[in-house]
């Protein structure tokens, strides 16, 4: 049996092993070194960010977490970044789930982001967990006109009448935007058909790779921002991370006496290139800043991004290697096919 025959009859378990190594080794390397691949946002990821960024602080955002642990690897990083942007911007977040395990996903992502990095946000005033409701698209169809019918209490059993941020919420029309992390049915398509289209509400969708091709036709009229699979998550994550760092440095600059518009320009510049911050503090333009403010600025510029906000970018390393392997296997498979056919083998 020559090499071509051996390759043509290769046990598929060798392919599984190669794929396991192609995914596993980059994870270990990235986990130890902490280095991730650079991400440039596509217009869709940027649009998702812009929709939430353009809203006034305090806007009401419905966050629909329609996924389960099976798709947490793809959608978890999106959910984390959605919450981070809303929390940093000061939006009010209303979490609901149309998937039974979505309730756990809400608890997991809110405890990790709000509990860990925005502990000042008050439950019931800044965010509320309304939990899971069965009924699929019927839930959406109903809350378009009557929110309290499906959500008489929050997930903790507190009456919505006793929750301050529920005041004035009678239907979906009272929300300023809808953010949906979706793994299938019911999910983003149902939010498009039953909520975003009839109400003309801005809708941001983060969906699995399987769903993404189905969602593209809705952009930009019915879906304003679309994050497709882990690549979309990584792009959006990088935009949010850069923006949060910029916002924090803007605060440091303004507390140090640097006023608009110079402070905004500097914050954006340092967010894009953090190493410039320490150089700038030695220049004459920074003379007005106190030493404490300068130290704070340099700390913010050089502080590593917390690992929780790099999940998607970390997973792009294994993607690269695994895709290279797949491309190699496809080429090899075709080469073997044509070589076999030329020899008069299987057609």
């Amino acid at each position, binding site marked *: 049996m020559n090499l071509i025959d051996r390759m043509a009859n290769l046990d598929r378990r060798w392919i599984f092993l190669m794929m396991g190594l192609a995914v596993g080794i980059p994870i270990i390397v990235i986990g130890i070194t902490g280095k991730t691949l650079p991400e440039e946002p596509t217009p869709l990821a940027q649009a998702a960010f812009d929709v939430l960024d353009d809203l006034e602080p305090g806007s009401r955002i419905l966050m629909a977490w329609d996924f389960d642990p099976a798709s947490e*690897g793809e959608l978890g990083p999106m959910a984390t970044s959605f919450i981070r942007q809303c929390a940093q911007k000061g939006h009010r977040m209303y979490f609901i789930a149309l998937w039974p395990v979505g309730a756990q996903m809400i608890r997991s992502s809110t405890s990790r982001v709000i509990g860990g990095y925005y502990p000042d946000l008050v439950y019931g005033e800044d965010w509320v967990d309304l939990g899971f409701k069965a009924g699929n698209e019927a839930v959406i169809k109903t809350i378009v006109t009557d929110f309290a019918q499906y959500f008489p*209490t929050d997930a903790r059993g507190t*009456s919505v009448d006793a929750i301050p941020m529920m005041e004035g919420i009678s239907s979906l029309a009272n929300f300023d935007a809808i953010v949906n992390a979706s793994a299938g049915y019911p999910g983003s398509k149902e939010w498009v058909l039953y909520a975003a289209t009839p109400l003309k509400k801005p809708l941001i969708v983060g969906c699995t790779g399987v769903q993404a091709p189905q969602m593209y036709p809705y952009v930009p009229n019915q879906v304003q921002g679309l994050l497709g699979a882990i690549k979309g998550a990584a792009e959006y994550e990088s935009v949010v991370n850069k923006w949060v760092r910029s916002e924090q440095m803007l605060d440091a600059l303004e507390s140090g006496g640097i006023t608009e518009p110079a402070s905004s320009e500097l914050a954006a510049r340092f967010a894009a290139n953090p190493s410039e911050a320490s150089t700038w503090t030695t220049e004459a333009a920074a003379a007005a800043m106190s030493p404490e403010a300068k130290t704070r600025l340099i700390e913010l510029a050089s502080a590593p991004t917390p690992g929780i906000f790099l999940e998607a970018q970390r997973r792009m390393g294994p993607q690269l290697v695994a895709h290279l392997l797949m491309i190699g296997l496809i080429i090899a498979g075709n080469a073997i096919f044509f070589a076999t056919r030329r020899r008069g083998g299987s057609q």
Partner: protein
Amino acid sequence: MNRQQLTLLSIVGIFVILLVARAFTGNGFGRIYVERGDASFVKVEVPVLDTPDGEEAEGKADGVRWTWVDASSDEAVDFAKAESPRAAWESVTPVSPRVYFEATIANEALQAAAETAYAGAMTGVDLGTALETWRLALLEKANAVAAGKAQPAVEVNWAALRTAGFTRKTSISAKAGGDFTASLDAIFDAARATGESDAETTFVVADGRGTVTTTADDVVPAIGLSWSRTIGLWLAAIFTLAIFSFLYKDNPLYKTAESVVVGVSAAYWMVIGLWDMIVPNLLGQLAPGFVQGNLIPGLAASDPNWAYLVPAIFGALLLMRLAPKGQYLSLWTLAFIVGTTAALRMVAYIEGDFLSQINATIAPLYQEVVNADGTVNGYSSFWASVRQITLVIGVLACLTYFFFSVEHKGAVGKVARVGIWFLMITFGAAFGFTVMGRIALLAARFEFLFDDWLWLIDPMNQRSAAVAVSCLF
């Protein structure tokens, strides 16, 4: 068992033995640590300040409402009475292993420092000054021993000392010498000689903090291993590997894991359906008083809504599928479900999919993109127009391919051929997205195994890097 199977079994066996041995030595791995505390709540009457004049909201009798609040909150201080209902239980909060490791290092540093010599002067000073001098000296020693790996703390429980009769102002004169523990005893012996205190004092170390107190029993470590959560983590890892084992070949481990997933999912769906749907949305409407009093205290009390008997009956009829006779009754409910779902979807699809998509396609082929200053961006306009033209060609070509009333020959055949190309590109993109999604899921499981279970990597900085790497050796 043939030689190949025996070899494989041996490799797996050795791997498992090494894994278990490593898990139970040193810092181990795959452990979940928690911090235990006390949660205490009290039910209070809180005035409703924003009730409109002349309007009493349901469940808000006499301008007040009942609510449970944290026993240490401002509301509890202001509104709780002696007879107010109270509830308390042990709270368990997961903490990262790093917190436990740092507490352990700090404990060891404090104990080592307490055994070193202390040479503080204790003549003609009061007890407060002597203890503060002793505390700062011990803290300095402990910090030196910890070498920056942890932040030990030393504190004096003055509340307990005062209860035992010690006061800060007691003038003492003790002989310095010996280690920190002996010096502390000397300080208190001197204080007893001048005062009326007689309680035993002690220095207790727990959770990275050393405490001088008289009530050693009250100082219990709050941070520790959670066996239940650790077992859960190991089960998750074992089930993950069991599912992966199918890639080698079908086996009992995989079957077991698969069956557990199916069983747990079914049970979970049932419980969730009961508590999130039937109880609040059906029973809560038919018997709101009962539900509020016994099942969901937070639900607003209201009059029964008897219209909900209709869905209750329909629901009961659906269960007739399980009955030996009268199964046809479930068809009424099914007919209702099919009819309403079809109607709901028809309207939504016509508006959201059909009309909106036609509307989005019928757009000028030339797309003009304008800059912020009002000038036309030629580059962006060109590519936007290319995109729009491609979209229109794709739609028309694909529609032609699916138009079977005309034979696909000549010009129609060529256009249909273009449609096939568009479809193939779409399927390719869909396949690419699917592969990307599956790899992301595999990466997430590997991250769980390498990070949470094996502690090989530490991207979330849950453990110090030194601890993570030491797991390899």
